[in-house]
């Protein structure tokens, strides 16, 4: 196993930056998820690490080697693809054996390694089958086996679970995590599903528009998003964002909505809000930190219920505060109706404030 270091990596297509000066270090044995919406550059970044496409600039180290100009075959990596990319004309055994054959191992070595990998993944009974005779989950295991069989320095995974049905995806997620724990493997994992990233990764790298937005542990990314994009991307349902305006009354600071209601800020939040480059400030709140009142109480702001979505153990309620939507989670025993007038209470210790112009999180000066 080895660490992976990206230093100012750039990939351009014509004038478009697919990957824009991305730097990050994946420590030895770490599970890092590259996460972001489609087209954010995460798969391109993975392909750059794999060497499948050429970099436009920057350096990539795997272990102690600079791999910029190395062919994929010389980088000592293994990759699991979204569509598994199993060789359709080869049996499972031959699929697993192919990387070893390419490395000119002896026949007996190949057989021993294939069998042991097959045993680990519980696919021994499938070795003589062709990929098309396997279920999605089995193909997934074979793809993993082909990566595993060679004991590479780094595992690269490109949305390996997204072709599975929901139930199997959850199951394979657990297995992948277990697999990483047992092997202490360095894994770079691409996904558009922030839940996969949060549940499996030691660290997540949130990307958007070719830029690395934030690179931190899932908990830190969740608790302290650096900007509005990360705030709205990580977490499900997404963090509610309400654009407001800072107003001061002597020493008191409040946020005023276009509708006219005001939300007084605590001292700590007031200091943050005043660092904004303009008067525009966006308030962010996770559904679990927002309370819903059916009667007006001090410190609340008025809204109207838009939809009520029961999921069984939690009911999500979307509330319109003027033009912006706030999602509130309720106990299913609380009965509310669409179009009902309600009052929202934000937890001053848990709200996030963003600069309305730069979209960056505001920190106390």
């Amino acid at each position: 196993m080895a660490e992976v270091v990206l230093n100012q990596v750039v990939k351009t297509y014509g004038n478009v930056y697919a990957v824009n000066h991305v730097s990050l270090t994946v420590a030895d044995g770490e599970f890092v998820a590259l996460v972001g919406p489609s087209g954010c550059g995460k798969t391109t970044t993975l392909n750059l690490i794999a060497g499948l496409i050429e970099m436009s600039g920057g350096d990539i180290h795997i272990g102690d080697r600079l791999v910029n100009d190395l062919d994929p075959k010389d980088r000592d990596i293994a990759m699991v693809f979204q569509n598994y990319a199993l060789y359709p004309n080869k049996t499972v055994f031959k699929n697993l054996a192919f990387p070893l054959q390419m490395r000119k191992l002896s026949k007996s070595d190949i057989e021993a390694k294939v069998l042991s990998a097959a045993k680990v993944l519980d696919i021994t009974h499938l070795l003589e089958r062709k990929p098309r005779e396997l279920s999605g989950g089995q193909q997934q295991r074979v793809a993993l086996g082909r990566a595993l069989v060679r004991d590479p320095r780094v595992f690269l995974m490109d949305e390996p679970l997204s072709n599975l049905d929901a139930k199997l995806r959850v199951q394979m997620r657990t297995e992948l995590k277990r697999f990483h724990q047992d092997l202490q493997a360095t894994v770079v994992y691409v996904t558009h599903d922030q839940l996969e990233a949060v549940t499996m990764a030691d660290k997540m790298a949130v990307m958007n528009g070719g830029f690395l937005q934030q690179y931190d542990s899932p908990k830190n990314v969740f608790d302290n998003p650096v900007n509005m994009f990360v705030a709205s991307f990580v977490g499900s349902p997404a963090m509610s964002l309400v654009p407001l305006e800072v107003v001061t009354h002597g020493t008191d600071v409040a946020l005023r909505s276009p509708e006219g209601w005001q939300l007084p800020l605590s001292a700590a939040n007031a200091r943050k809000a005043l660092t904004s480059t303009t008067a525009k400030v966006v308030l962010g709140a996770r559904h679990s930190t927002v309370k819903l009142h059916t009667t007006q109480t001090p410190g609340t702001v008025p809204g109207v219920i838009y939809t009520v979505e029961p999921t069984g153990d939690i009911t999500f309620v979307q509330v319109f505060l003027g033009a912006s939507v706030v999602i509130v989670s309720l106990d299913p025993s609380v009965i509310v109706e669409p179009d009902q007038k309600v009052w929202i209470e934000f937890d001053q210790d848990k709200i996030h404030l963003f600069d309305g112009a730069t979209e960056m999180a505001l920190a106390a000066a």
Partner: protein
Amino acid sequence: MSTQTATPPPRFGPAIPRKRSKKRIGGWRWAGRGILAFLLLFTALPMAWMIITSLKSQLAALQYPPQWWPEEVTFQNYIQLLSPNNEVGQEFLQYFWNSFYVSILSTILGVAVAVPAAYAFSRFRFPGRQFLFFSVLLRNMFPAVVFLMPLFLLMKWLGLVNTHGSLILTYLTFGLPLSIWLLKGFYDNIPVQLEQAARIDGATRFQAFFYIVMPLSSPGIIATGIYAFIMAWNEYVYALTFMNSKDKLTLPVGLQRFFAEYATNWPGLMAASFIMSVPVVVLFLVLQKYFVRALTEGAVKS
């Protein structure tokens, strides 16, 4: 989410919808069969008549009303054509060999050029790619005869007139465009991730192509090979124009000249035609499953 809709309730099984659909399209199915039967007769009858005639004597072949079935079956025509001991047989076998030689070489060369060309068109983005790809088709937009004179002059200038090289070159210009287009469709449908996986697994770019992509595209390669072979095998106009010495003629031209020298020997001509069609039929029979796979797989995304 998808688990809710993934599997239909198993109780009813597939039997009910299938039965119903069979009933509904029954009428159309019979109409379709009728049309197919007609087409079969239309294509098979001339061949049947060719074989029947080839088994008759010259006298029997010219009778009116015709003998629907030869009263006296004779293999004399075939024996004469295939025995190297008489003049007729020698000439025929020479033509046969010429045709075979020209067709095989244009096939092998065609595949050798079309495979890398199609692969490059499918996988690589390079300046002028689109232009080149469509200009490949330019040749096929015009009837072959249009190019007869220019190509003849070109061959004369190259000193290739009356050599098999001129025919092979010409047949390549006919066959390559379609071969490239057909194969490109094939390579487009082979996921690029397969090659990427192979390259990560330790293969060079060429090894990835050779070990992974080539075997997957073999139906396409076989289909283009058959196509190129048949086209070269049957070609007449260019062979007639470019070849002038008797020992270099290919079968289509040879047959015509050969039988025009004598009063037209219909049974002999039919026997020769039958022998000429054997390689094509055999090719199809042996490789038809690849051919069908190539034409369907190339067209439909899997």
